[in-house]
């Protein structure tokens, strides 16, 4: 499959990442983060506490936000700050879509600040800000259509399409 790389700048929207919220993800995330609060693995006890089901813990959300940013910025990207606020819970069966927009980007220092949002079917699960340092200010997007198989190259400042990336 082909890929497209986009040169990053302030205002660039990062490609969205869809995360199916499975019971397995919720429980695996809670245990991997050493969070044994019953609301993250025991439906009965979660209900007794007024929640309709188990829900994702904040450490997992934090981890997913971190993954989203480093996936976008590629090898060499290092997280410096992650600040998130939670809203609508992530319940099993839902899908969270993470999106990001670059707010500031400093080529000199290789530092970017990204506003991240994660929405699910019931609302805004997470909003936050991530500061990341990077080695290359490009984002790689996997293409799903056929256009990447051509040799056309767009020579604008903003984009650089190639057909060489087999990911």
């Amino acid at each position, binding site marked *: 499959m082909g890929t497209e790389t986009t040169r990053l700048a302030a205002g660039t929207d990062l490609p969205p990442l869809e995360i199916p919220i499975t019971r397995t993800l919720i429980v695996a995330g809670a245990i*991997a983060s050493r969070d*044994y609060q019953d609301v993250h693995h025991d439906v009965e006890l979660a209900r007794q506490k007024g929640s309709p089901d188990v829900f994702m813990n904040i450490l997992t959300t*934090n*981890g997913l936000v*971190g*993954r989203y940013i*480093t996936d976008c910025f590629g*090898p060499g990207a*290092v997280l410096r*700050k992650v600040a998130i606020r939670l809203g609508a819970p992530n319940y099993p069966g839902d899908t969270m879509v993470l999106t990001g927009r670059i707010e500031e980007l400093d080529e000199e220092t290789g530092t970017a600040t990204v506003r991240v949002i994660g929405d699910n079917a019931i609302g805004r699960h997470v909003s936050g800000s991530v500061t990341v340092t990077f080695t290359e200010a490009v984002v790689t997007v996997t293409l799903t259509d056929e256009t990447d198989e051509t040799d056309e190259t767009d020579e604008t400042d903003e984009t650089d399409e190639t057909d060489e990336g087999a990911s």
Partner: protein
Amino acid sequence: MTGGSDEFGVRLRVYEGQPAAVSGVGKDPVNLPMIRHWCEAMGDTNPAYEGPDAIAPPTMLQAWTMGGLSGHVGRTGAYDELLTLLEEAGCTSIVATDCEQEYLRPLRPGDRVTFDTAIESVSEQKTTKLGSGYFITTRTDVRVGDDLVGTHRFRVLKYAPSRRPPAGRARRPRPVVNRDNAGFWEGVAEGRLLIQRCAVCGTLRHPWLPGCNACGSLDWDTVEASGEGTVYSYVVMHHPPFPAFEPPYAVGLIELAEGVRMVSNVFGVPYDKVRIGLPVRVEFRRYDDDAGELVLPLFRVVEGEA
């Protein structure tokens, strides 16, 4: 709950600035297996977290400080006291709302993490969708040896859950029975709808009151209503939902054949078929729930009338 009173707020704010954990020690050194489990859960395939030069995912910062099943380490009495105080006030649930982390240098396998946590602030009482409670903000400094490797600000909401149990399982609200209206509810328990009648001027009255509105007399007796009536007025409840009732439903002001009016549910037709003037008849309904047995006079639309 106690919340809302300034006195309670003052008691809570005493904890601001106090340590929540002193010289806590991470239960495990930073290690590859825990990093791998984390990456598996998150679906994170970043090569930086693998191999001989692996670093830990920075967002794992808090995971290295977690108490796990065997409990927290280094926690002070102050934090537990604060939580207990809130629990005693009805704030039995907890949910994390904010996490702000700064990573000063990567953590690597073998690093031994220590941490100190301070209670930064305790909010005033806040009402949220989850319930009413207090936000507690803590700040944790994470070190390896003498080096500060990361900071971690964490905010939780400790709250009294606002519950909405499914209709049918919730307890139906109980009438307030006092010495002025006890006779009415005794009648209802026997399946009789009793109207108060002034012993001096004969005026009927409902709801039950100590004295007559017409002549002021305190003497009264009762007459049993036939149970026939009409819808004098009504509302349809859509919102807000009340635990024992499933909206929408019709609440009627029923004018009894004897001339007095009372409020009760109108049933027997869909809520949107209730109209002013519909003939209704009392029906004594029995409810059994965990609070015991309850009999209430409801009004059924007379068949063939809607």
